[in-house]
């Protein structure tokens, strides 16, 4: 046992979640501070490495990865990345300022549907997520829940149902930035 938080850290990261610096959850904040300490980080890195997890530090967040690919098939990864692209595109259409620290509610997005035809079309095209739900509000909720499950956003205020974008979104942004579109293809894409 390296710190008394080791098991807490492990439990969170093992589920593919992030430990973010701007999480509204005090416990996560504490864990982030623990991990921020360089010595602790190095010790924990060694510790987790022995059980086949790599503790990694991103821009204001921590996460686990695996030393070598084992039981993750590429199709699954692509599937996941696709749904992230869809959702992020939808939310960026809602508000281009959708990025780390952004706050929003489902009803705000819902009310935008009336004024923003583009947003509405995109929601209707998001067939894979929440298509079994009939009304828009439920479908938006479903989309938000999916992003919440992947730990990119979190419910900050239960009363007003305000969500907050966590620093882990930087991971997604980095991922998208890493994907390379060859220039001749990029030029063919209409604006």
């Amino acid at each position, binding site marked *: 046992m390296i710190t008394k938080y080791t098991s807490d850290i492990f439990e969170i*990261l*093992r*589920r*593919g*979640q992030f430990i973010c610096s701007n999480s509204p959850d005090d416990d996560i904040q504490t864990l982030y501070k623990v991990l921020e300490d360089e010595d602790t980080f190095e010790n924990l890195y060694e510790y987790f490495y022995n059980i086949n*997890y*790599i503790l990694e530090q991103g821009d204001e967040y921590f*996460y*686990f*990865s*695996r*030393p*070598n*690919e084992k*039981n*993750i098939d*590429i199709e*699954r*990864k*692509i599937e*996941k*990345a*696709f749904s992230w*692209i*869809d959702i*992020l*595109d939808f939310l*960026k259409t809602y508000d*281009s*300022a959708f*990025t780390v620290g952004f706050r929003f509610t489902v009803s705000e997005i819902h009310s935008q549907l009336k004024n923003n035809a583009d947003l509405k079309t995109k929601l209707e*095209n998001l067939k894979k997520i929440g298509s079994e739900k009939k009304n828009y509000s439920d479908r938006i909720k479903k989309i938000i829940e999916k992003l919440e499950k*992947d*730990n990119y956003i979190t419910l900050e205020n239960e009363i007003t149902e305000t969500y907050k974008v966590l620093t882990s979104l930087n991971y997604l*942004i980095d*991922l*998208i*930035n*890493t*994907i*390379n*579109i*060859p220039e001749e*293809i*990029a030029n063919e*894409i*209409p604006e």
Partner: protein
Amino acid sequence: MKTFNNIKELVTTLNREEKLLSEMFTKRKSLNYKKNYALELVDFDEERIEKLLQFSVIRENGGFLEIDDTFLEFFEQILDVNEEINLSYINENIKSIKENINYYLEENNENRKYGYLKFIKKTFRKIGIVTLKSVVDLRRNIENTFKNESNYKIKQLKLENLDEKRMIVKDLINQTLSLITNEEITFFKTATDEELNRIIKELKYSLSECTHNLIEIEKQIIDYLNQIKHQGKFIEKLRKLKYLKDQFLILSETDIRQVLSNKNQVIFEKRSTEPLNLSIDFLRENENAFEIIKRVAKRNSDKLNYKPLIAESISDEFLEDSIEEEVMINFDEVRNRFVATSDNLFNFIMTYDFLKEVSFDERVTIFCQMASQYENEFNFEPEFEVNNGIEYALVYPK
């Protein structure tokens, strides 16, 4: 076009139409202020509007009214809400100070000299105020633009323009400072005026404050521009990927497969449950364990109890007693009778009265059964006889 004869006339006129003017001022951005609305605010007295039009306080344009530019600018400046940052003032002021310093130095008449000095002092004071004001305006405009402008391209252009303005203000501050400290040394040495000294000091102070503010603004603007650039680039990239994805080209045209195959994050893994077995020691020793078991048991009892499937009740028909009689042949009886005779078995059976109808074939079967069952009690002769096409052995009792 009439002009106001004195301040009193101007102020009373404005005061009388305060309602209309303040309403029009708040709606100055919407451009269309209908004359009908205006009439309501002046108690439907068209003459009052007419008067304002005569003095050019407001203008009429095809049924719409607007406040005249001179007044609008005046109001905006006084109320500190102007969005345009007009820097030509400072520039002109610097020029006129230079001119007046020259006049001052050339003038011999004390009275006139004093007049020039007064103008110079006034202008210096004005420079201080105008510069500070434009810095404050600049800052407010930058923030407004960044937060409220929805179009990314326009936002970027506006911020770039504001950045240019910032450069001009900075330049003007430098000009003013060099005017005070380097260029007109003679003037400042000769004009030993207490008030001038104080004004210059205040001006220096407010200009250095402006410089500090400008540095901060510069930082802010660079940050905003970077954010826009970054965001804009990112959104563009995202849209492109989305487009490729929707066209089913993303896998073939980008390196997404390769990028993802290098990513071994746990987030991509399936969240597996761990079917760990319970510790026997725990179940045995822990007090909570029993509580948990009870709780689980209780939860299970809530579930529907599946009743075993029951077959339909047996109908009464099947339960009624039904008697069926069948006459059975008692071989022992037949044997006893046969033993008492001297006839052979076949003939005996053919003629035996069984108390019921027994056909020839059945009698043959009975013969065979008897012969095999009581083999030891009968004598089998080696001769055969034929009856009804059947060859049979002659069997006698022993």
